[in-house]
């Protein structure tokens, strides 16, 4: 019997674990190690953050789902990996620390034959003073990164709306809380949901809503922007985004590294080196991401963390980490099998793998401060990568250790994104977009870097309905209900 350990139970880890359990059957063991007791459909956190959904609607308990799938579930956080075993343990193993009440703080070494690292990111609030500390969110801003954070954001938004109803003008500042953030799309969706909610509450004229982000142009979204085919033109996402911001009366600050947050004020540095500050009454700033801080040790107990992980804490995979400057970047730099180059039985997927470099062109201020988006790894790519990695490992377990690996490069993969504003079936709208491929390939698609037959975007009710359907469809799939394997990632 072989044992596969999956670290993390988010979109990528959950997809990998559930498909592996389905394909391997009871002859082999799949173990999921995740510190969370619940699964969270993160895209709908935006609706939780404006009070249109409860956190219970976007989460469910993992234990019964894993019991149904025959997956061994450990509510614990991984602390370290020994890919060669140790003096006393022959096989590779992971050291975990339990987070459930019954075994809180206890440790266990779990041996494995194959390992998938799908831990997701550490929300690095501590990177910006005042944004939060090492333990999480600070007192001055809100977040929608987790269901609990979003629920807290909704409470604060409600207070702001009440103040506006009482005649007190409110300033909203939404965006990214550091120069090296990703996930601009989530903040983009949140700002327009706020705009929709304050309009619905009849207090839009009392709200000053402003965007702040590390993008060098509006509509970069961490993918260097995109060109969407519409009305016979290939229109830049810059035009698309600026149009939407203008229509909704939202001002923007771009190329900004938020370097300090204090009560009611954010300090920032711009790409031109100038410093500024922006006051706010309500602010949601996305933190930068980092690896979760896993350590790695060889058989003798020597620290090999730098061999297994990149400096940002994400696991090294089959990417080209020596591509150098932007001019040398190629689509082929991006990983396709997600296998660790040192240990062939270790893989990483979702946000946990180390990208070779950003997608957006890196920029920095004259002061040397890097201000540009880091690459996003959204739900669809994360799910597809998780499934491909699970497929590779299942083949190697069932067909032999030389079975070819499955590939899922973000340079050959598209993504569908739906950013809703509002939740009502007929009073909300959404920007529905597809992008193909996620990583631009300027050799294959000279000019825009993407296939504009499959890269498009439009605003309307249709995309909004799709957002609703996706919410129910993916929670259905994640709960492993009838036909779940037929629902694509």
């Amino acid at each position, binding site marked *: 019997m072989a044992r596969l350990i999956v670290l993390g139970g988010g979109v990528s880890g959950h997809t990998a674990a559930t498909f592996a359990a389905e394909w391997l059957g009871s002859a082999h063991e799949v173990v999921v190690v995740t510190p969370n007791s619940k699964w969270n459909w993160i895209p709908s956190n935006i609706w939780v953050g404006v009070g249109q959904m409860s956190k219970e609607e976007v989460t469910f308990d993992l234990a019964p789902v894993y019991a149904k799938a025959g997956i061994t579930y450990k509510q614990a956080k991984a602390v370290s990996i020994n890919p060669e075993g140790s003096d006393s343990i022959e096989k590779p193993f992971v050291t975990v620390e339990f987070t459930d009440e019954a075994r809180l703080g206890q440790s266990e070494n779990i041996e494995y034959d194959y390992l998938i690292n799908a831990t997701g990111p550490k929300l690095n609030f501590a990177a910006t003073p005042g944004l939060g500390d090492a333990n999480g969110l600070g007192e001055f801003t809100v977040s929608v990164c987790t269901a609990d954070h979003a629920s807290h954001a909704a409470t604060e938004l409600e207070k702001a709306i009440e103040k506006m109803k009482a005649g007190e003008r409110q300033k909203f500042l939404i965006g990214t809380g550091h120069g090296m953030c990703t996930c601009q799309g989530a903040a983009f969706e949140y700002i327009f949901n706020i705009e929709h909610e304050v309009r619905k509450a009849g207090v839009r004229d009392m709200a000053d809503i402003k965007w702040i982000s590390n993008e060098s142009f509006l509509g970069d979204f961490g993918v260097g922007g995109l060109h969407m085919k519409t009305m016979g033109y290939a229109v830049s996402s810059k*035009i698309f985004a*600026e*149009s939407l*911001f*203008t*229509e*909704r*009366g939202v*001002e*923007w600050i771009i190329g900004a590294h938020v370097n300090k947050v204090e009560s009611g004020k954010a300090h920032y540095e711009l790409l031109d080196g100038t410093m500024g500050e922006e006051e706010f009454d309500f602010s949601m700033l996305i933190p930068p991401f980092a690896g979760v801080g896993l350590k790695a040790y060889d058989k003798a107990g020597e620290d090999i963390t730098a061999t297994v992980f990149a400096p940002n804490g994400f696991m090294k995979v089959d990417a080209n980490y020596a591509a150098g400057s932007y001019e040398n970047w190629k689509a082929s730099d991006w990983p396709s099998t997600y296998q660790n180059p040192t240990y062939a039985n270790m893989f990483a997927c979702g946000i946990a793998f180390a990208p070779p470099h950003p997608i957006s062109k890196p920029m920095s201020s004259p002061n040397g401060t890097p201000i540009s988006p880091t690459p996003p790894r959204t739900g*669809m*790519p994360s799910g*597809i990568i998780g499934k491909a990695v699970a497929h590779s490992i299942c083949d190697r377990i069932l067909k032999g250790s030389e079975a070819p690996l499955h590939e*899922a490069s973000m340079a*050959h*993969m*598209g*993504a*569908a994104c739906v950013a809703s504003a509002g939740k009502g079936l*007929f009073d909300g*709208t959404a920007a*529905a977009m*597809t992008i*193909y491929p996620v990583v631009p390939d300027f050799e294959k698609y000279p000019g825009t870097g993407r296939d504009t037959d*499959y890269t*498009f975007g*439009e*605003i*309307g*009710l*249709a*995309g909004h*309905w*799709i957002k609703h359907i996706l919410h129910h469809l993916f929670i259905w799939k994640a709960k492993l209900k009838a036909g779940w394997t037929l629902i*694509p*990632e």
Partner: protein
Amino acid sequence: MAGKKEEANIKAYSQNFTTMTPGPFAKWIRTCVVWQAIRFIVINIKMLVVVSKSH
């Protein structure tokens, strides 16, 4: 002569002076249920094509 409502947010030589802005028809079509039902089918097909090319 009164200005057009949908252009009211544009300020001369401000950051939004160079972008495009939707007119009444573009806004109406976004919430026209019949048209959006058609677009719903079209967008779903487009997304399924992108999904199929990605697996």
